[in-house]
């Protein structure tokens, strides 16, 4: 096998949406940071479950119900294996946002009080800001932000200084920034948080789809991600939590499936992980996500990362040749995930996205659900091209050509 860096993946045939009919506009999909495209086998796995194995889970004793149980719990096992997590601490949620809310409500309300602080960072997605704002306001606690340096990176020294103040109970941060692309030194950060006796939560929504993630090595107390950015279906997210913490936490959503027993006066809770999965879960979506992580494992996450890293380098080179274009975040590809957010002098990001869209190039424009970060960068909005395992150099060429063309239309 050639060394990782020299291997490129050619998986386009696995993604039905990329096989456009002749005469249709080409699809140059550069918005995987928003949601990924799906391999045919994920679509099929979900459909096959609904066609042949559908029943409610954790209820029936008939054979079909047992098939559904096996599919659902088997999906949990495969997903936990993929990230190196414990099955009992692997909880299905609707998405990463719900997973963060689960921790903010269930852990936060029981453990955060007046005089305590929650520490997050300036690069967070709104999903990792708003639940903490609400928690801190409700509990009389303080919400503080770790600042970024001019490269768009966090400093471990600044983290240590914040922790040394002695009031920080929880530190929540992105593994990979959805705007800057910055890859944070998560294992070093969790080690410092742990030494300070605080709890860590990592938003892995942008990391899990594009690089090897080994939770045993990262050592976070909570790690959240979402299925639809990782080649899986929408409507399914994952919370990995430390079992001792989850055991002590009260439930989040309550109702069916999460109870051990209910009588008129009160109830007792089901064991992990079901204590945190109230109501009928997203069974077919869990099966689809398991197919997605199996697919990624077959490719090898180190190969996925190598493929996307090479493309990111190529993209940064191409973008550097567009006059007036400025990429935000760390300058070198190795320090960032497979995306580039940029501004272009004389062209607003919305107009960029509109003009690129006409040439079949799909990019995101706006604040990317990170308004505090945009203010910190001093820009109202950026355009963002984000890559998936199915992208190739020709996609980048089309992006760069469309940017040059857009400048011409605007007379720049």
């Amino acid at each position, binding site marked *: 096998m050639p060394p990782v860096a020299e291997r490129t993946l050619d998986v386009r045939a696995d993604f039905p949406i990329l096989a456009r009919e002749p005469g249709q506009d080409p699809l140059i999909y550069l918005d995987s940071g928003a949601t990924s495209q799906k391999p045919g086998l994920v679509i099929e796995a979900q459909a096959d479950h609904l066609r042949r194995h559908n029943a409610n889970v954790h209820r029936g004793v008939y054979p079909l119900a047992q098939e559904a149980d096996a599919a659902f719990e088997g999906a949990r096992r495969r997903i936990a294996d993929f990230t190196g997590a414990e099955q009992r601490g692997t909880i299905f949620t609707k998405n990463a946002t719900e997973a963060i809310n689960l921790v903010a409500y269930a852990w936060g309300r029981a453990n955060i009080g007046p005089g305590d602080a929650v520490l997050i960072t300036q690069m967070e997605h709104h999903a990792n800001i708003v639940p903490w704002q609400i928690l801190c306001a409700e509990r009389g606690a303080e919400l503080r932000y770790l600042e970024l340096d001019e490269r768009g990176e966090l400093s471990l020294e600044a983290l240590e200084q914040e922790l040394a103040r002695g009031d920080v109970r929880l530190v929540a941060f992105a593994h990979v920034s959805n705007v800057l692309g910055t890859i944070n030194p998560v294992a070093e950060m969790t080690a410092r948080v742990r030494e300070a006796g605080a709890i860590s939560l990592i938003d892995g929504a942008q990391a899990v789809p594009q690089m090897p993630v080994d939770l045993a090595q990262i050592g976070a107390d909570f790690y959240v991600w979402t299925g639809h950015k990782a080649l899986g279906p929408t409507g399914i997210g994952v919370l990995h939590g430390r079992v001792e913490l989850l055991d002590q936490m009260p439930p989040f959503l309550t109702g069916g499936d999460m109870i051990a027993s209910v009588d008129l006066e009160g109830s007792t809770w089901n064991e992990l992980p079901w204590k945190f999965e109230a109501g009928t879960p997203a069974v077919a979506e869990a099966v689809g996500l398991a197919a997605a992580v199996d697919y990624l494992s077959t490719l090898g996450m180190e190969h996925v990362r190598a493929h996307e890293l090479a493309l990111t380098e190529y993209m940064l080179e191409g973008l550097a040749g567009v006059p007036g274009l400025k990429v935000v975040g760390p300058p070198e590809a190795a320090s960032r995930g497979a995306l580039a957010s940029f501004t272009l002098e004389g062209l*607003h*990001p*919305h*107009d960029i996205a*509109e*003009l690129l869209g006409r040439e079949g190039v799909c990019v995101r*424009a*706006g*604040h990317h659900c990170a*308004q505090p970060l*945009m203010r910190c960068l001093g820009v*109202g*909005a950026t355009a963002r091209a984000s890559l998936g395992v199915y992208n190739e150099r020709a996609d980048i060429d089309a992006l760069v050509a469309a940017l040059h063309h857009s400048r011409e*239309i*605007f*007379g720049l």
Partner: protein
Amino acid sequence: MDDLYRDYILEHYKRPQNFGELDPHDLEGLEHNPLCGDELGVHIRVKDDRIEDLRFHGHGCAISQASASIASEELKGMSLAEVGELDADWMIELLGIPVSATRRKCALLNLKVVKGAVTGDNAWPE
């Protein structure tokens, strides 16, 4: 010729009319486009229940900036009661380009901020 980015749209975008501050002013407003975080504010001077003068300020895309620029000339001299009656169609027709559903808010942001300043109702114009 580009359907959306016509010459006059780009001309208004690059050199918008009635942009800046207006002090003193009688009415003011500030609105955001939640889609992109763009911001548009207005200062309005009123005389005899009419808009005597106005200035927009803020940042946005070509569609939102050109819309504000084009609308500003029409709004001058209009009675406050007339401003209160203006609807989305007025702005879209005035703009004279095919605006897609996703860009509609870009085109209507200026009307939202002006109507908000004049009537206190800052709902998206319909």
